[in-house]
């Protein structure tokens, strides 16, 4: 058994390496397009209201998951809100959008904007975990130049 093991060891094990790179044109659809347009043109955050349970969802989407009815009414929500959960990401990984290492650290926060009933994911300016806790109040900081991109049009959220 042991000699066989050694024989195996002496045999070089190979692999095939490759970068898989597939471009995607992700389609925002009607609802998220309205959201991105409002962000770009007016620096406002848009939600959508369920006609049945009256819950306001950010980002807007076609259906209320609880009522399974189509949402129709777009409503602006506040740029201030409460951090419901967060983490400070320090684990290194590849940014799949670029194939390059992801810039670290960053704070991923789930923020319930005033006037909405769901949480939106974005980053906080603050990356020191000692200075952040769930329940904190935060406000969106918008970019001067906006392109209709959720990730950059809102620069980050700052602690109020």
């Amino acid at each position, binding site marked *: 058994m042991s000699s066989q093991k050694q024989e195996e060891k002496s045999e070089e094990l190979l692999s*095939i390496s*490759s970068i898989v790179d597939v471009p*995607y*044109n992700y389609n925002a*659809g009607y609802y998220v397009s309205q959201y991105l347009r409002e962000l770009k043109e007016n620096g406002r955050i848009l939600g959508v209201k369920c006609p049945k349970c009256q819950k306001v969802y950010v980002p807007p989407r076609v259906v209320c*998951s609880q009522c399974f009815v189509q949402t129709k009414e777009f409503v602006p929500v506040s740029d201030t809100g409460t951090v419901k959960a967060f983490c400070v990401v320090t684990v290194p990984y590849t940014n799949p959008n670029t194939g390059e290492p992801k810039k670290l650290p960053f704070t991923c926060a789930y923020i319930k904007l005033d006037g909405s009933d769901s949480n939106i994911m974005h980053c906080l300016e603050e990356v020191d975990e000692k200075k952040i806790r769930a329940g904190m109040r935060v406000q969106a900081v918008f970019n001067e130049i906006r392109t209709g991109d959720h990730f950059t049009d809102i620069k980050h959220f700052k602690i109020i």
Partner: protein
Amino acid sequence: MERVAIIGVAQTKYQRNSPSSHDEMAFEVAQKALEDAGVSIEDIDNTVTCTNDFWDGRTISCMTITDASGSSKVPTTNVEGDGTLGVLMGLMRILSGHFETTLVVAQSKGSVGIPGLITNAIFDPLYERILGLDAINSAALQARMYMFKYGITEEQCARVSVKNHKNAKNNPYAQLPLDITVKDVLKSRMLADPIKLLDTSPVSDGACAVILSRESATRKISRRPIWIKGVGHCSDTYHLGDRDLSDVSALKSAAKRAYDMAGISNPWKEISLAEVYDAFSYMELMWMEGLGFCDRGGGGALMDSGFTEMGGSLPVNPSGGVLSAHPVLAAGLARIAEAVLQLRGEAGARQVAGAKVALAHGIEGACGQGHCLFVLGS
């Protein structure tokens, strides 16, 4: 086996670059299928979605349509494969005795990614991918082998394309209704010999939904149920070179299972129409043979005979088939939805008169490695 029926179907219009997002398409068909069945979301006690992480550019792609497919409140699962396999999953859940009514939703947006890159990833990264294989050139290898072995001509393949695009003119959901001739097909741009542009299916966005229900639950609804009589699925082996690409054993095996279950001994006589997965024109001819509609190698002559045209004795792809709209994953489910419309007598201008038994077929992987087919009856 307790009888299970299809009680509702819905499709989007198939198009390239649809302005709708994945979830918007899924919601559209889920809602319409409920309306079609005359039931409400509360009647749905489980769902099955069919999505694919490569086509959608998203790991856990089923997440995209969890809410939109009505999956947020009931047990759901995601079959990553053709929509026919999704219906099979739904059928098994009902037959297990734990569910009454299943909503199956399949969606795909081919225009989001680059089909050649996405289908390249079907091939073995260790031995095949480096050759630049994709859906088109692998199909060309299969077409060449099949045509050589059985003396099938490019004209016969072209005739499939002419027929199906013409049929598509009667289908409001189809993407490519076309008036073309055999000459047009033969003269269209050569992509990978012997496959030309008009031998191929388009890049499509679209969704399809189907609602299944056990017999005891169908009494509640007014719409005429269409019964699942038989189902079979089967796979060939994987490496292209290990397969005899001109062979249709996997389809034959799947068909035998479905026919046995449905009690069909002479498919040619007993089946009124077939909706098959013609991703390329030659495929329809091969699948005819695998489905037992003609002998091995007889697909070309069958096409020439005109029997598979509208008005023939066994119309194949009255909808225009996959050649006329190819929303991957939803495409097989669309075959089922079309078969249901035919059996209900609601297929409009594409109606096959007196349709009683219909066949719907889906494929999986490269060159039809896997097959799944349903025999449906009114």
